[in-house]
């Protein structure tokens, strides 16, 4: 598979096929991220399209200091932010529990044993089985959690990269990550119990 940098250097020479390959690689990840900023799919698509235009016209400005993906996401976030609804900078923080308090006894210990997800039936955790539940769980997360989860756990960016892209502190990033991950675990637990 061609690396991003190879495709970019072909794109600089006006290679249409390289553009199509980059689009195939990043269109869906970008849409997923954009949806964490804007209310509708149509607006998200516009922001993504706008980003591609920025890439094609601004390709000379890419210096290769950051990964292409990070550069791409930065342009997208800027465009999606200006298209998105205005948010209060300090949204009120709702109380949060990693696990429903009802699951603990009065000493704060698990009231019922926690079932391991692996064991004799290894295939219970097939990605293809639980992908759709995770996908919709991700879409239902509050936007700030969703952005962090998409960038960290779906796209695999580092904590530093995410803090820089989203302009948040590491502590804040961890809180959002904690809430998002514990919520997705809860969703999986429910699904697995039903299966």
């Amino acid at each position: 598979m061609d690396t991003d940098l190879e495709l970019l250097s072909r794109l600089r020479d006006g290679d249409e096929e390289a553009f199509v390959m980059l689009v195939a690689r990043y269109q869906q990840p970008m849409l997923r991220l954009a949806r964490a900023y804007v209310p509708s799919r149509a607006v998200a698509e516009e922001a993504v399209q706008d980003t591609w235009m920025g890439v094609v016209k601004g390709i000379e400005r890419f210096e290769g200091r950051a990964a292409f993906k990070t550069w791409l996401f930065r342009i997208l976030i800027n465009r999606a932010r200006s298209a998105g609804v205005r948010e209060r900078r300090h949204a009120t923080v709702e109380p949060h529990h990693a696990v429903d308090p009802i699951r603990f006894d009065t000493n704060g210990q698990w009231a019922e044993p926690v079932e391991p997800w692996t064991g004799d039936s290894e295939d219970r955790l097939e990605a293809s089985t639980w992908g759709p539940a995770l996908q919709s769980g991700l879409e239902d997360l509050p936007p700030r959690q969703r952005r962090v989860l998409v960038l960290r756990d779906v796209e695999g960016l580092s904590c530093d990269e995410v803090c820089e892209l989203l302009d948040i502190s590491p502590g804040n990033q961890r809180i959002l990550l904690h809430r998002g991950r514990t919520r997705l675990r809860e969703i999986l637990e429910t699904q697995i119990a039903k299966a």
Partner: protein
Amino acid sequence: MLSLRRRDIVCQQAVEMVTDYLEGSLPRRSRRRFEAHLRACPNCAAYIEQIKLTIELTGTIEPEDLTPEAKADLTELYRRWRSE
């Protein structure tokens, strides 16, 4: 029944420390207490495994394939941007 020392953490606290632990951002003393709790508590050990599996599965969410229409639209746009 676990016998609790004063400085021990309980399960309900442990589950709130999982992300900080995995991010490597727990202060040393908290980390030691957390690890001691995990060794003594199969439930929290199972819980952290579930979180790790959740992270792993989230990382395998596949992007859907781009529709031929979307690809054609963008190619069309590309030609226009290039000629502008």
